[in-house]
């Protein structure tokens, strides 16, 4: 039993699914709903999983399709993005000395257009190959690569814009938060 179970370690994939869901939905509670819906759908479509296939890529592509097929539209009305972003920020735990820069990077990343965000997430964070990421998103590899290029260019541009503010100033705002 234990051997069979480890072969299909879905529970072990939950962290990856939650992260990708969060990147797509930009909200913690929505992300969890999306993960749950993904697992139900994967259950129904489990015949589509080829023996020896990449379990994570299979689940990520179901998650992506679940998101595209209406999840996004249903949630868009239900929540206001601005409010969601505030709440979601509290759902992260990061090493203290990096938290300001990380928070800024997350904001920048989450403000990228959806296609670029998804491409960058699958490749840079999940470590999928270009081919796997392209098939997860259902787009040609060339399109994936151009989205990655644009995502990186956007991140660089936004970082350049924020640089003049200065890191010391940022540290005071984030670290002491009005106590000094």
């Amino acid at each position, binding site marked *: 039993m234990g051997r*069979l*179970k480890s*072969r*299909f*370690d*879905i*529970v072990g*994939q*939950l962290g990856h699914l*939650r*992260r990708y869901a*969060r*990147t797509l939905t930009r909200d*913690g*509670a929505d*992300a*969890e*709903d999306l*993960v*749950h*819906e993904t*697992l*139900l759908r*994967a*259950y129904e479509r*489990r*015949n589509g*999983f080829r*023996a020896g296939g990449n379990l994570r890529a299979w689940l990520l592509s179901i998650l992506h399709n679940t998101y595209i097929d209406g999840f996004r539209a249903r949630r868009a009305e239900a929540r206001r993005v601005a409010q969601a972003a505030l709440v979601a920020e509290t*759902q*992260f*735990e*990061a*090493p203290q000395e*990096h938290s300001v*820069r*990380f*928070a800024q*990077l*997350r904001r920048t*990343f989450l403000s990228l257009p959806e296609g670029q965000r998804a491409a*960058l*997430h699958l*490749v*840079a*964070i999940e*470590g999928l*190959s*270009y081919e796997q990421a392209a098939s997860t998103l259902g787009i040609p590899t060339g399109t994936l*690569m151009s989205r*990655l*290029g644009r995502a*990186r260019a956007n*991140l*660089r541009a936004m*970082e350049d814009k924020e640089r003049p503010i200065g890191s010391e100033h940022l540290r005071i705002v984030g670290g002491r938060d009005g106590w000094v």
Partner: protein
Amino acid sequence: MDGFDDPVTNADFDGYVDDQLSPERRIAVEAYLSSRPGDATRVMADLRTKGELRLALAGFRGVPRPASTEAARRLERALARDRWLGGLQRVAAVGIFVAAGWLAHAGFGPLLISHVAASTQPPAYVRDAVMADRTTTMRESMASQPEARVYDPGEIRSATAIVMPELPKDWRVKDVQIYPSEFGPSVEIAIEAGSLGSLSLFAVRPGSFDVVKPSVVTTGDAKAAYFQVGEVAYALVTTADNRDIGSAAERLAETLY
């Protein structure tokens, strides 16, 4: 040239950062960058951002719910089981051919079983279904217990992992309640079912996987038609003398496939 012929492009920089290049191409890009500080700065900045992004998003805890973990376990079990069944399929196929041959040989006659109402013990969840039906009837008569008339199968499914069948158009939902049961949360819906009168539909995850065609049982003054599709079991319960409850259950079961 410097030992490489293809010109190094922006796509190569991304491929380098994303670790998608062959070892030869990586070296070519590194050779190119070693003599171009401007591009090298850009690539190093991209590498840094990638590493930081990983760390920044790795801390995401989200709001994990037990239902997701349970759904993940269910999928794990199903995948393992399907694999096992896949192995059995060939054996089963042989068995079916043998059985078919045997049946043909026997000329069908002796092997056909006449239609009888089986008197086997109903599954345990039927008792919960009857109890839920009684509770709902009691609630109906109490002014202080408001009925929940909003029936949202999508929400029920995402909260309880119970898939509800599609109700016939002329059925009217009077009350929807989530009740505890021996097997965990259950769904109980009180329905005004047109010509069938009042009945309730009960659904629960009994903890086993099975496909059971609708069967009708009578317990006390209640009559229940129970069936199971996959991991969810259902029971239609009525206290009226109702012959059609079995065929109603069959119609409901069909909407689940």
